[in-house]
């Protein structure tokens, strides 16, 4: 009974979300007080990957589409905003939607072809496309090729907001992440989201009933691609630098790990996974150069102990 209610009604969990949001809003002030401003940059980075993982969760967790090429859309968004800046287009209001549009376009094209396959073949085809984009990026030396493309400056927003200030950048990123989560929640609780999740549950039945399954999946895939493109835009701005390596399959794998870790099919799964993964990475790397070992151990424990991800642990605790 609870399961069915959850699919139709993804709650925003204000009881947890609001304090967390307050903490996030206060974070830069706390960091300044502790003379640890570097961590505001880290927090921005974590938020960006939280956004990317959430976009993957949209199609992976809620749509049942295991895309092993999702990082490619991040890369497309990042390159789009960097190339736009190179061509003189520095305003965020123009460049960012443009970059999202370009990612959406790529997602549309790739999805149109890939979604005609199923199961492991879908995984491999999405992987193949991502690899093709990666090799394409490496080969075009005009855009830096293997060495990457520098972004001469961060996008301009205007109105007193200066993205070159780490704190402003953090708040803009936080705002975008919050808006995106809200948008995803609305989407999931609307008819579109219900149909998508029903398709994940039983695609054959949905086709038999008469839903245009392919179309729904393609729309979801495109939206996820656009969202990933936005996270790419933010990543490019954060680092001032775009490298083809963000499109590699290992990056897609990392996004998948974050989504699975956080809990596929849970609204906050992407965020939880990204935060946990990256915080753990940062924490462990302080102590030892062999932090990947600790990370592996923790991930293994999580997958054995919490089969449905971290979010499921939180959920059961709440009920119990």
């Amino acid at each position, binding site marked *: 009974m609870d399961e069915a209610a959850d699919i139709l009604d993804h709650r925003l969990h204000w009881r947890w979300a609001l304090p967390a949001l307050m903490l996030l809003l206060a974070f830069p002030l706390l960091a300044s007080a502790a003379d640890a401003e570097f961590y505001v940059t880290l927090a921005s980075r974590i938020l960006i990957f939280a956004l990317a993982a959430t976009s993957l969760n949209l199609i992976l967790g809620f749509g049942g589409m295991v895309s092993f090429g999702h990082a490619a859309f991040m890369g497309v968004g990042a390159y789009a905003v960097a190339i736009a800046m190179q061509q003189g287009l520095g305003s965020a209001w123009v460049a960012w939607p443009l970059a999202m549009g370009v990612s959406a376009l790529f997602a549309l094209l790739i999805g149109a072809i890939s979604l005609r396959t199923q199961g492991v073949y879908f995984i491999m085809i999405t992987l193949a496309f991502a690899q093709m984009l990666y090799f394409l990026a490496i080969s075009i030396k005009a855009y830096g090729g*293997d*060495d990457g493309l*520098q972004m001469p400056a961060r996008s301009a927003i205007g109105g007193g907001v200066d993205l070159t200030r780490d704190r402003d950048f953090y708040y803009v990123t936080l705002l975008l992440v919050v808006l995106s989560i809200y948008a995803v929640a609305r989407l999931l609780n609307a008819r579109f989201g219900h149909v998508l999740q029903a398709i994940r549950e039983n695609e054959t039945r949905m086709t038999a009933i008469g839903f245009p399954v392919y179309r729904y999946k393609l729309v979801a895939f495109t939206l996820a691609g656009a969202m990933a493109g936005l996270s790419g835009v933010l990543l490019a701005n954060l*680092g*001032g*630098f775009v*490298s083809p*390596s963000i499109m590699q399959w290992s990056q897609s794998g990392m996004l998948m790990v974050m989504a699975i870790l956080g809990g596929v099919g849970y609204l906050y799964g992407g965020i939880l996974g990204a935060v946990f993964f990256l915080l753990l990475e940062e924490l462990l790397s302080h102590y030892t150069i062999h932090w990947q070992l600790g990370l592996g151990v923790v991930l293994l424990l999580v997958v054995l102990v919490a089969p449905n991800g971290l979010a499921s642990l939180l959920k059961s605790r709440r009920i119990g």
Partner: protein
Amino acid sequence: MFSKFLRKSIVCAAVGVALAASAQSTDPVKIGFLSTLSGPGAGLGVDIRDGFQLAVKLAGNKLGGRPAEIIIADDQASPDVGRQAADRLIKRDKVDFMTGVVFSNVMLAVGTPTFASQTFYVSANAGPSQYAGDQCNPYFFSASWQNDNLHEAAGQVVQEKGFKRVAVIAPNYPAGKDAITGFKRFYKGEIASETLPALNQLNYGTEISQLRASKADAVYIFLPGGMGINFIKQFVAAGLSKDMTLFAPGFSGDEDVIKAVGESMLGMFNTSQWGHDMNNPANKRFVAEFEKEYGRLPSLYAAQGYDAALLINAAVRDSKGKLSDKAAVRKALQAAKFDSVRGSFKFNKNQFPIQDYYMRVIVKDAKGRVTNRTMGTVLKNHGDAYVASCKMPA
């Protein structure tokens, strides 16, 4: 009464100032050592690190009289990872100097945040043409060379030896292109083929087939570290060493490659700004101490790391430890008053060295070791080709 008070306050003030000054002078000098410590290029990063740390150790773990704190990070030969590591070193650890990068593509990514934060970068290896020419920056100093230099010297050697058809191989990244440009600046014969394999590629079957097809009489390779090791082994295994003479810059002909490849390298010519058999007191001390500390002969990478540390030491010393006075530090760096293992050392207008380049050949020395012997000087007091387009104020 008043004069006694005045005298006391003067003494107190003097003591106070002295304390403040000494408090500053016991603050450690923080060095951000970012290099390639994993993957095929790791041997180079490790060599630079070993040379750098040896110099600091011999100075009593001090730089310019102040305690030295070296923070080591691995860039994994990736511009992306390198840049993030640089951000951490600059913003979190707040280092005073950065050094160590091996590969030029990483260098170009690391340079931007380093210069933006007004942190000095003393390069122990990478010397991209961009930083020697139109993108020269007051915060960049090369304690090694400019990328083209060793290749220019090699081009001169090949030209003088009279080879007519030369095949050129260099990895597809900024330093690789600098290599080919530099080589062609001094070699005037025919280029039989120009191949740019991917950086850190290890399987050269394709390139070797192409070499065979090109019918060159000599091959010039710029393949540092593990790349060179693999290529030379595969080149010899495919039987091409019978028909083609192999030339390289010092990067592919130094101790790290020799150790891995061995006697099949005997007779190979290479060019360098330094050789371990050079006869000046600083070098003799360096080589002896290095062998004692690490049990192996130093490569040119280690020599560069050592010199970089000596240069930083001189800069801290000559600017009296006042590292926040960027102009003073820059002047001290430009003066370069230290005893380099190369002999004399001076900077050009673009903060790249003007120095001699030598031809070396791989032989068996008196102890039966396969190693380099420095032969003659190929280029004397040689600067670089990009200094004219550097427009930064002195």
